[in-house]
């Protein structure tokens, strides 16, 4: 599977880590960020989150972040997966895995990637709550 992808189906963290480890035996540290759907947000219950993407541009933007992070940080590899579908509370949304010789660069790159993904990748979420649906506008 591609190292950077957007998909409807769920993903397996261990499979992604193993796929990254298989690319290099020089990795001394692998950092993962796993984003999940919360059942509570902005003071109300959330049943599920519906994701929408600008197909094509979203994947290009994620690939651009991958390439930029590989240049910017002293790391050996990245895997990024984002689901675009209806995700129920407690389910997985996004995974970022970064491998480096040393942990500091892996931690920094992983944090930078999720921060930039929220700002630069055209994906939107709509929360389904007991009071109705509402688009999420902020990216905390």
């Amino acid at each position, binding site marked *: 599977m591609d190292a950077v992808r957007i998909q409807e189906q769920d993903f397996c963290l261990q499979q992604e880590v193993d796929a990254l480890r298989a690319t290099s035996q020089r990795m001394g540290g692998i950092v993962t960020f796993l984003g999940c759907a919360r059942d509570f947000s902005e003071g109300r219950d959330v049943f599920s989150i519906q*994701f929408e993407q600008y197909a094509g*541009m979203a994947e290009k933007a994620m690939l651009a972040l991958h390439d930029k992070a590989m240049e910017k940080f002293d790391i050996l590899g990245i895997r990024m997966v984002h689901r675009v579908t209806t995700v129920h509370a407690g389910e997985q949304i996004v995974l970022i895995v970064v491998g480096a010789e040393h942990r500091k660069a892996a931690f920094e790159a992983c944090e930078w990637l999720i921060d930039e993904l929220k700002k630069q990748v*055209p*994906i*939107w979420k709509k929360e389904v709550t007991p009071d109705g649906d509402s*688009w999420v506008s902020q990216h905390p």
Partner: protein
Amino acid sequence: MIKILFFGMIADKVGKQSTTLQGDMMLGDVIKAVGCADIKPLLIAVNQEQVTDMSIIIKAGDEVALMPPFSGG
């Protein structure tokens, strides 16, 4: 023909996910023509590249996306 795509809450506001316009025109005029001039903040992509210059000329075959701030992750 210019293709215009609407995403997220902007699609809800205009009541559709896409429309088309005929003829060449400035990006700012495209946004006015589809009734999105007052929407702020508004992110814009032309042929899947983000732009901010409202004076660029949009031509037949171009794809313009009108987007609210991203909220993935």
